[in-house]
């Protein structure tokens, strides 16, 4: 075997690992977003209609998690059930915003509008991939996410224009802004370039944040709210994004809820 072939093989092996990490990031984010949205069932939103609609979005998110876990499994990762019920919590690669819910309507709307825009930024960047399986999933998932974005934006704009809730929207924006940007803490783009046939530049955190900002600006204009205070050049995924195991305290509580029934009835089938 020539040296070149060896190098290619080595690059491909680490590229596969990076792609596996990316698939788990997408899967873990979508799973926890879906799960925490389902909790709203217990909570009264503006109306029964609005909650039923959101539970439908939650099911979409769980469906997206399923296909990304499947992709991860095909790349040598865990099965979906193992990933959710047995994986050490520190192996979850989700960003904190995915589980960091507050059972409050404006908080939920802002969290989800920001999450959807961050999610769209990474899916858009992945869209031109030459990786057939990932490309197919991204295309199909992004189509559903367009509806989700419209849904959360519709609420965002309405709440921002209501005198009673405008301050809550602004407060929630400050609360979730960095957490949304942390979603863009993606695996090493240089490794992904070869594996995915993508330009590494487009997957760099600054490029993804730019994409995210150009997505939220028109929304903020419609809602007549300002970007949070701060220097835009410092808006980058932080070390405490939650990815790579460093989750905040609320994470274990949510995972505990997810696993409660399974741990009590490990032989259960449903």
């Amino acid at each position, binding site marked *: 075997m020539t040296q070149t072939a060896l190098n290619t093989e080595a690059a491909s092996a680490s590229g596969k690992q990076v792609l596996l990490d990316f698939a788990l990031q997408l899967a873990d984010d979508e799973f926890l977003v879906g799960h925490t949205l389902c909790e709203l069932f217990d909570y009264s939103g503006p*109306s*029964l*209609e609005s909650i039923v609609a959101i539970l439908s979005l939650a*099911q979409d998110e769980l469906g997206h998690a399923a296909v990304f876990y499947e992709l991860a499994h095909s790349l040598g990762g865990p099965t979906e059930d193992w990933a959710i019920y047995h994986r050490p919590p520190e192996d979850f690669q989700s960003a904190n915003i995915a589980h960091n819910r507050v059972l409050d309507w404006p908080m939920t709307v802002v969290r989800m509008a920001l999450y959807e825009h961050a999610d769209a930024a990474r899916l858009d960047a992945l869209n031109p991939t030459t990786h057939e399986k990932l490309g197919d999933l991204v295309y199909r998932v992004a189509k559903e996410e367009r509806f989700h974005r419209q849904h959360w934006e519709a609420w965002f704009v309405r709440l921002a224009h209501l005198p009673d809730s405008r301050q809550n929207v602004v407060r929630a924006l400050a609360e979730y802004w960095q957490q949304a940007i942390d979603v863009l803490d993606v695996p090493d783009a240089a490794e992904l370039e070869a594996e995915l046939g993508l330009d590494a530049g487009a997957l760099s955190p600054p490029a993804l944040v730019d994409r995210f900002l150009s997505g939220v600006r028109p929304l903020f204009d419609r809602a007549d709210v300002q970007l949070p205070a701060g220097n835009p050049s410092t808006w980058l995924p932080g070390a405490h994004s939650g990815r790579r195991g460093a989750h905040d305290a609320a994470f274990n509580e949510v995972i505990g809820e997810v696993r409660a029934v399974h741990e009590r009835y490990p032989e259960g089938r449903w």
Partner: protein
Amino acid sequence: MTDQAPQSERSLHEGTALYYVFVQSKKGGRHTHVGDVWAPDSDLALLFAKEHYARREPCVSIWVVPHDRVVASPPEWEEWFQMDQQKRYRLPNEYPADKYIPRSSAQFIQEAYGKPSDGSDGADNG
């Protein structure tokens, strides 16, 4: 718009209006009334309708119509609608449509509206 809502529903749906939802399951087909949503405005009514009525079944288009914009027949017509007269003479069962409709038109109808009735499923055939 909630003026006509029953008293029991009025507080539950305060600030919202009732919309009738129509779903078109394929292009060229008809929009069919599938249910209602209460929503604060027509944009949200559309978004709710998508999640309530188009999340599992095929759909290419949705209409939402404010319920108070629908012109409905008065209740007393219900009795008038009862068909006491035998209406068989109005039905086209004896008309061999295949013979008279040009093939291209028949195909068009089939593509737009699905398989044409072969007359075997009509209630008045027996």
